[in-house]
């Protein structure tokens, strides 16, 4: 293309020629990215497009799909199980996750921040981070054992206190709260470290001034430390919400969404629709709805960050 226009050097042709020359000069860059983009085209971009397209079809995953417009979405939003129960459960779990992620690790971080002894502070950081070596599956299986209605520790404790045993995961009324209780006391090590990083970045002059003014430990926590680490809190909350919307580990490993759909969530219904019922179109529609939810939340978060910066400036 460049060779044809050697003399007639109109501006756009000249820039085209320059681009062609730079493509030849930097050819190796495209080769370097070949691996990544082959992986991404096959296992990320194409599946994303395919999921959105097939959410408008009836599809068994392998034979040609049949276009049905919004039928799958209509089903998702009118289905008793998927919409009423799964989305309600998801809402409760996400809400709980927000509260949990914003409080308990923050409490741990604020306490460690107040320790004057450096060695002790390091040891406690280690103590709260160490549980990340416990695989999620093992955590779920241990809690399942604790909840066992006959031999579980939870009912043993209730017996000692003198309360009637509870069925925990086996009863529709207590199953979802049991999922929420699991992981007590909910101090997630990584979140705690990120909060601690935020606290350590507070300039010492600010603390000094507050102490001069006679602000006590608790007062400093609420009116100084929390406002100053809002960015960290928001990061942890948004990461937790995004993770919480997509997770279905308990359902896959233990509850299967039961008993009586008490613990089902949309992600689990999606998995079931595709893998057990072969209804890949409906599954794709659930996936797209979750995608839109996550996308919206991310955008709101972005907007909040921007307005916050303007406020500071």
């Amino acid at each position, binding site marked *: 293309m460049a060779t044809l226009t050697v003399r007639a050097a109109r501006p756009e042709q000249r820039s085209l020629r320059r681009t062609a020359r730079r493509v030849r000069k930097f050819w190796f860059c495209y080769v370097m990215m070949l691996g990544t983009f082959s992986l991404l085209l096959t296992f990320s971009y194409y599946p994303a497009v395919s999921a959105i397209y097939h959410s408008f079809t009836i599809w068994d995953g392998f034979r040609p799909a049949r276009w049905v417009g919004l039928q799958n979405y209509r089903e998702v939003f009118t289905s008793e199980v998927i919409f009423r129960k799964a989305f309600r459960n998801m809402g409760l779990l996400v809400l709980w996750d927000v509260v949990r992620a914003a409080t308990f690790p923050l409490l741990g971080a604020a306490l460690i921040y107040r320790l004057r002894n450096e060695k002790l502070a390091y040891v406690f950081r280690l103590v709260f981070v160490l549980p990340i070596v416990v695989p999620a599956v093992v955590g779920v299986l241990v809690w399942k054992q604790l909840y066992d209605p006959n031999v579980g520790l939870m009912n043993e404790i209730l017996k000692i206190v003198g309360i009637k045993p509870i069925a925990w995961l086996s009863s529709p009324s207590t199953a979802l709260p049991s999922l929420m209780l699991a992981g007590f006391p909910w101090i997630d090590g990584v979140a705690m470290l*990120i909060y601690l990083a935020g606290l350590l970045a507070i300039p010492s002059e600010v603390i000094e001034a507050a102490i001069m003014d006679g602000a006590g430990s608790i007062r400093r926590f609420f009116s100084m430390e929390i406002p100053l680490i809002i960015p960290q809190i928001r990061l942890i909350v948004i990461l937790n919400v995004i993770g919480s919307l997509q997770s279905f580990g308990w359902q896959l490993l233990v509850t299967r969404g039961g008993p009586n759909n008490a613990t089902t969530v949309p992600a689990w219904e999606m998995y079931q629709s595709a893998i057990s019922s072969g209804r890949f179109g409906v599954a794709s529609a659930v996936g797209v709805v979750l995608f839109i939810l996550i996308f919206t939340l991310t955008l709101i978060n972005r907007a909040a960050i921007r307005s916050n910066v303007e406020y500071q400036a």
Partner: protein
Amino acid sequence: MSSTSLRVPGETAQSVIRSRRRFRLGDDWKIALLLAILGFLTFVPVLLLLGLSFKDQQQMADAMWLPSWPLHLRNYVKAARVIRPYLMNSVVFVLGTVSISIVCSTLSAYALGRYDFPGREFFYIAILALLMIPGILTLITTFVVTVKLGLNNTLFGIWLPLAAGAQAFQIIVLRTFFASLPNELFEAARIDGARELTMLWRIALPLAKPIVSTLVVLQILAVWNEFIWPIMVLSDPQRYPVILGILRLTQLITERDPGAQFAGYVLAGLPLLILFAFTSRTFIRGLTSGAIKF
């Protein structure tokens, strides 16, 4: 944990900050006590698991949740025998995924961070756009693609999709680092006639070692703990990673040794504990100092 591990050179920057906070007087022991209680509660499930893993059937029946003597190490021998092939599967999954992923992301991040080639913006935005695509949207269709390519029940069916999933995060972190390296480092080598890949290998990678190793550790953790994808892609339970292998312990170990099942749970997490022992300092420092930006 030996006391020497508490003193590390990199900690000094933080020590300065800490010592400046000497004025914050308070009751250290009260705070420490509260933290100790919270720390203990955090570890209760782990301690209970350890307790169960050493019990025989009689001890289980007597007092399931209390510690009891003697400890039955036999449980671990038995569990290890059952679990070994699954451990090997996990190791193979981790090695393959991490190698493919890190090689691809390093090459791409280097190209995107160091060269102003036509289309660079486009490719980088294409990477950033991945952050907006949640795994849940592509889970089912990636499964379909994997099956259509005939990769289900193969190692590549585990390696390639998991490596693809890690590209965005790794490329973004590494590209920022590569772009921050001063040009002079590379100009000198270029004058000496070094080839581009040589410079990546000799100059950029040695400097990126701490970041690359953090990314490797994070990915090892993620792949070791991955259970949804293997359940979907592997129809033969013999090929399961250890994290799913432990689900089969109940069937494989006879009723006489309920403790062996729990010993298996412990063994499934043990490699991560060893990994953590070697990397905890980098990990904790990296996160506390805010070195890894999200």
